[in-house]
């Protein structure tokens, strides 16, 4: 998307846009992306979902309800004017809970994906650029992490007693601790894909003339990696990170469902389903809506990542007409 300009002509020609004045890489990207209707639709859906989640307090105020107020006399009510989707098993407004749950799921998905991408990028750059022993060591480590059964490991990590880790009490006692914790844990195991991709791209980049020129002019390793190589490997990082968000939201929902992720009263789509197995009979809405939202959000991120991949990766062109 922001690559060096000289490639533009070749890419545009390959993409079948050779007629007329040549397009900038950015224009080629948008043309290709907009052709991918599912990805565009997904982007629209995700933007709307984010706006709605951010607007949760407004919706709360407009309806005149309190999303956290337990009211057992008002539990499992059908939809009404005050509660457009009805109420949950503790009498809280379902719509407001879903929107706040959306905030949590989206924040966890984006934050964990971003953290994982940063870790993966740094390790991948170092492994690819320095090569040798460091590369061998880092890649062995990556292979080891990839092979691990992640969920049982996360279950143990999520069950740790944070007080025994010596973390400050203000942090351990805060309501959002379960968000920080799950972002940290998922980033801890989620960096491997980006690390491998970046390492591969760095290996091919470091033999290019502009990198060797920078070396000849005396640039230090970190500068070459971050200033010269990183901008050229951004595309695969963006694609892999987008594609990882869906999986992360799923993982968060699984952990929260099992009672080890986001802790009530903080809502997340996963922990709203914890008692779905019992609830589905007398109030199916409570068991259906959170699941549908997880499904739609995850599939939207996957379509979006797929569309970005097609738009950013010139090699993907060959599969088309």
């Amino acid at each position, binding site marked *: 998307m922001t690559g060096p300009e000289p490639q533009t002509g070749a890419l545009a020609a390959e993409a079948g846009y050779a007629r007329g004045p040549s397009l900038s890489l950015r224009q080629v990207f948008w043309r290709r992306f907009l052709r991918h209707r599912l990805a565009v639709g997904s982007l629209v859906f995700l933007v709307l979902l984010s706006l709605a989640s951010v607007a949760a307090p407004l919706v709360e105020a407009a309806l005149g309800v309190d999303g956290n107020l337990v009211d057992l006399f008002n539990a499992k009510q059908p939809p009404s004017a005050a509660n457009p989707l009805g109420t949950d098993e503790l009498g809280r407004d379902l719509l407001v809970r879903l929107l706040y749950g959306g905030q949590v799921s989206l924040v966890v998905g984006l934050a964990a994906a971003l953290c994982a991408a940063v870790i993966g990028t740094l390790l991948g750059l170092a492994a690819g650029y320095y090569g040798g022993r460091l590369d061998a060591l880092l890649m062995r480590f990556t292979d080891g992490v990839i*092979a691990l059964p992640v969920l049982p490991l996360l279950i143990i990590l999520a069950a740790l007693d944070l007080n025994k880790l010596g973390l400050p009490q203000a942090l351990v006692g805060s309501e959002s601790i379960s968000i920080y914790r799950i972002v940290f844990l998922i980033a801890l195991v989620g960096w491997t894909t980006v690390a491998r991709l970046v390492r591969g791209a760095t290996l091919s980049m470091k033999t290019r003339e502009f990198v060797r020129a920078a070396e000849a002019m005396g640039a230090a390793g970190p500068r070459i990696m971050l200033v010269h190589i990183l901008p050229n490997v951004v595309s695969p990082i963006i694609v892999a990170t987008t594609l990882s968000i869906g999986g992360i939201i799923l993982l968060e929902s699984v952990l929260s469902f099992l009672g080890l992720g986001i802790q009530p009263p903080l809502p997340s789509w996963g922990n709203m389903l914890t008692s779905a197995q019992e609830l*589905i009979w007398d109030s199916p809405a409570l068991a259906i809506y959170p699941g549908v939202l997880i499904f739609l959000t995850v599939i939207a991120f996957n379509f979006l990542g797929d569309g970005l991949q097609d738009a950013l990766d010139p090699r993907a062109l060959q599969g088309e007409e």
Partner: protein
Amino acid sequence: MLSYLTRRLFESLFVLAVMSLVIYWLIGLMPGDPIDIMIFSDPEMTPAEAERLRRVYGLDRPILERYLAWLGKALTGDFGYSRLYNQPTLDILMPRLGNTVVLMGLSFLLALAIALPAGVYAATRPQSPVDHAINMVAFAGISVPPFWLAILLIILFAVTLGWLPAGGMGDGRDFWADLRYLVLPVLALTIATVGSVIRFMRAAALEALRQDYVRTAQAKGLSGRQIVVGHVLRNAMIPVVTILALQMGNLFSGALITEQIFAYLGMGKTIYDSVIGNDYNVALAGLLLATLTVLLANLLADLAYAWLDPRISYQ
């Protein structure tokens, strides 16, 4: 070949040793310790007695010393007793490992049996309506929350239609009756797995279809079917096998959720229950056994890789 195998086995053992140390340390950081639990169940206990018990069990020792003591026993096959089941840890875990291997193995084979033809078929007709349909199915499978899907399956097949049991295990007396308990868990795990396998398979087949040997085969007049079966399939399998091997950890994670929802007595459910129930010995040994299973599956995949691709020789 043999030297390669030995090296890989040693690597796996090394990973396992590191894992055991890390998990041992992590379990020490879980809430409560065995003595706390004893105090909880015996209100008469005095602090002095608790201190004495702590010494008897060696809990006042540094963690590394305790780990080495545990390792020494573990190497002789003694993983201690389960707190929840009052049985030796391995007696609990071994039959459950068998159950999990059955669940994972069946789901894996079923996913392959669906994904192989679907992926190759989609790749031979890129951008066709069928390709798009298969792609949509694959994306749906990848994106559905596995625990929610399992609940929906129970609602449909166990409750509404009443065809299959909602969960649990057979009693081992009637093979065909027991098999009914496996259907829904295997189905749930297969749906959760098959999407990514279809995507890998399609990508690999697309790549194989671009190769010169396919053009050669076309030029000498082979039929589409002959080309796909004889050339594309085998070559597409090579990258897929590697990726599938790396999926074993994921498959185990999926199995954990499936077992939990269907009350299927496998390793995943046992690990979860033991973590929640402070059953440290079982949690530790269970996680190590799960890791070992995944590492061995990786090793098997490597062997399959060499068998599929004669260009590769492990020296």
